[in-house]
């Protein structure tokens, strides 16, 4: 069914991606994504909240790569539960929890979430900060900041500043200031097509190039406002090379003090990042980046890379 929505331009593009199994991809796109959630330990102990969920006949299993992350195994409307409205649980896709785990926030860090709305990853960062340090949750679109603000409130986060800046202005404004930065960049969303088939209907290479330019600007800005020794995670929920490896390759070409770190996330399945595309040799370090297809974990598709600034 979904194949009838896919434009030939997209199909031709996907066929060129090495090691991508198109049949498996299309099969995943036609199924709903699993319902994941995180337990909010900022408010109450993990086991206490899980016990409340069990009492309400929900069945779930632990996500191996995400602290406090679970996948629902029964049909249940988590979104209407009191526990959800009170912020004791946060609904979030299982693979979407991986970028923050890769960033590995520590209590006391000053962290920028550059494209923060609607706040899934911001709440996850704040949970790992445990109330110490500061989170700057930024999104340039004020309308999207309403959801960001509501979610951070519901989650009970007090060490947070919400800003509405263009992410590209941070280095000029604060210099090398942050211990860690997350750039979960706006993208063409090919990893979450199951949520909305219009993603493939409206996909175009022109849009990919436009996004790629913006992504590189955001990534450079994120890198430039890191303290020496600081680390950033760049992630997208899409599969195109122009929005992933090429963006990172261009950063590595322009910043001598940037290098890629290995990401170790228990049980998460992925392919290594690509080092060749359209006859262009890319930086070998990109092998350390993670290319996660929807069929790897029967969940969202993502690209994740961790970059450190030497210092």
């Amino acid at each position, binding site marked *: 069914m979904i194949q009838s929505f896919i434009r030939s331009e997209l199909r031709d593009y996907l066929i060129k991606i090495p090691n991508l199994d198109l049949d498996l991809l299309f099969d995943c796109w036609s199924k709903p994504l699993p319902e994941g959630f995180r337990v909010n330990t900022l*408010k*109450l102990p993990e086991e*206490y909240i899980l016990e*409340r969920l069990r009492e309400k006949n929900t069945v779930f299993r632990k996500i191996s790569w995400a602290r406090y992350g679970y996948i629902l195994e029964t049909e249940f409307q988590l979104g*209407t539960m*009191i526990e959800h*409205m*009170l*912020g*004791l649980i946060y609904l979030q896709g299982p693979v979407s929890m991986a970028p923050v785990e890769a960033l590995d926030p520590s209590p006391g860090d*000053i962290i920028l979430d550059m494209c923060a709305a609607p706040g899934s990853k911001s709440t996850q960062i704040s949970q790992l900060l445990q*109330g110490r*340090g*500061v989170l*700057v949750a930024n999104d340039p679109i*004020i309308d999207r*900041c309403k959801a960001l*603000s*509501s979610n*951070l*409130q*519901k989650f*009970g*986060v*007090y*060490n*947070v*500043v*919400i*800003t*509405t*800046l263009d992410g590209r202005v941070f280095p000029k*404004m*604060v210099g090398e*200031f942050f211990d860690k930065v997350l750039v979960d960049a706006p993208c063409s969303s090919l990893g979450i097509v199951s949520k909305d088939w219009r993603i493939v209907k409206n996909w175009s290479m022109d849009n990919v190039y436009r996004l790629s330019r913006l992504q590189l600007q955001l990534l450079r800005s994120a890198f430039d406002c890191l303290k020496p020794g600081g680390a950033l995670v760049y992630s997208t929920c899409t599969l195109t090379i122009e929005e992933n490896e090429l963006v990172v390759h261009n950063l590595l070409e322009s910043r001598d003090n940037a290098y890629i770190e290995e990401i170790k996330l228990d049980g998460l399945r992925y392919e290594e990042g690509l080092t060749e595309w359209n006859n262009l040799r890319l930086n070998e370090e990109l092998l350390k980046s993670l290319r996660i297809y929807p069929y790897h974990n029967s969940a969202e598709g993502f690209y994740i890379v961790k970059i450190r600034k030497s210092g």
Partner: protein
Amino acid sequence: MRILDHSSRKILEKLLYDQHGVRDAFREFVLVMGGDGKIRATTLETVEVAGKIRKVLQIGLYVAKYRKSKNEVFLSIDGSQLLNDQLTKNVVELSEEECREWMRGAPVKLSTDSYGKYVVGKIEKIYLGSARVSRDGKAYPQVAAWRRIPEE
């Protein structure tokens, strides 16, 4: 938005002590207040970071609303959870069903009339924010519309 000065903070502390028995409420936090009487709790370090950045939309966690005209304070859901067992007075233990009613913003009939004018709802270890108690013995929860659970 301004940082609450010593005297304003004392007023808030006295109200929360009188209403709910909390001593030195939010003592470990910096409190800031907006023009609408909304009080937000945060840390000194967060205030310092905010001072370096432009276009700050919001800082910290909304914990309470102060109404100067009536000299009363209401705790938000998250403000009451932050205080948790420091709340020792006018705390109403709710059943699961009453909890759902509360979170719909519907009035909840109190079992005794020994409560004050304001109560905080609670179920097990979970706090649900403030309600105003009316003369008919019902608690009217102050749950923000966006936070209410939908009708079944």
